[in-house]
């Protein structure tokens, strides 16, 4: 009887281990994407595979924040769009990194801006994919993350972090340069953004063309560019002027 009881226990234990193994084999996924039909189609594709379980979906940062913490604690891979209607996917990735460190974030974005992807890596994303990627590769990326594989090499991660650092430094230098501009020089940049030429700017500001050109030389020197066009691009990029 003792042996039979032990055998029964062994069978039960093997069964429990098998169930636990099956549960552990399942990759629990959270989809964060505001294009609902695409998100639902993607969920359909993941759910077709026996190894995936889409445990949650959200279309915004707010929706993610209202998900039960119990649900979030189950998530292993979050597929996150960066462009969400109420915020940046980056803040979600940072939130997951700090509050739900078991979540591996895979960015899936239509952005062509490499810097944005680099900032996602800095925020803690485990991988970045463009939405032009075939779905089979997206699915494969999730499988690889679950298997503990790195989607990016150390070299790629380092390069991205360097890119973010360079961007941050350039931004800082630009802000310092902007602070050196005088009020008159900013007015000239505004006029430039309206498409005015040198003579027109001088007329508007009641100065001579020579004075306008001197101001422009000073502007170019302060912001570190070599032409009016580059000055305009700099001013637009850093929010000094609005191009309408």
């Amino acid at each position, binding site marked *: 009887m003792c042996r039979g009881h032990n055998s029964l226990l062994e069978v039960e234990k093997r069964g429990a281990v098998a169930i636990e193994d099956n549960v552990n084999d399942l990759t629990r996924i959270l989809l964060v994407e*505001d*294009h*609902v*039909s*695409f998100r*639902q*189609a*993607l969920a*359909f*594709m993941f759910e*077709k595979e026996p190894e995936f379980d889409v445990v949650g979906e959200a*279309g915004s940062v707010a929706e993610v924040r209202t998900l039960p913490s119990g649900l979030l604690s189950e998530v292993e891979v979050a597929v996150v769009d960066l*462009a969400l*209607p109420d915020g940046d996917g980056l803040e979600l990735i940072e939130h997951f990194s700090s509050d739900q460190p078991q979540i591996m974030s895979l960015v*899936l974005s*239509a952005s062509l801006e490499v810097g944005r992807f680099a900032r996602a890596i800095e925020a803690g994303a485990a991988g970045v994919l463009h*939405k*032009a*990627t*075939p*779905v*089979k590769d*997206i699915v494969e990326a999730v499988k690889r993350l679950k298997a503990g594989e790195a989607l990016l090499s150390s070299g790629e991660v380092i390069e991205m972090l360097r890119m973010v650092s360079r961007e941050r430094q350039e931004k800082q230098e630009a802000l310092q340069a902007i602070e050196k501009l005088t009020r008159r020089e900013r007015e000239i940049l505004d006029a430039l953004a309206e498409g005015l030429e040198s003579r027109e700017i001088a007329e508007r500001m009641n100065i001579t063309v020579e004075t306008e050109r001197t101001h422009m030389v000073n502007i170019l020197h302060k912001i570190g560019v070599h032409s009016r066009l580059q000055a305009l691009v700099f001013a637009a990029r850093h929010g000094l002027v609005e191009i309408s």
Partner: protein
Amino acid sequence: MKGTRVLVACELRSYSEALAAAFRGLRPDIEVFEAEAEDLDREVERLDPDLVVCSRLTASVEDHAASWVELYPDHEPRSVISVLGERSTVEEIQLSDLLSIIERTERAPLNGAW
């Protein structure tokens, strides 16, 4: 009798593939084709689809397809649809809406008048 034909040609490949797969899985009785966005007009001419799902509407789609969906143009959340000539804008279109459009398109008169 030709079965209902759906052509999916979004600018983002993952959108086309995911939607096409969902259509095939949920409506195994219809024919679903995928195309690159730049081949849209050519594939419309070739396949003569009943429904086109695309990122950017073209004259060829309007002229040939009984129904069409301009899905998230310029990555906006709204979509523009035309079902048998009846046009409307849909915010946050769902997969079930797209399946409903397929069903409504199937119910078009057999003489093709729409």
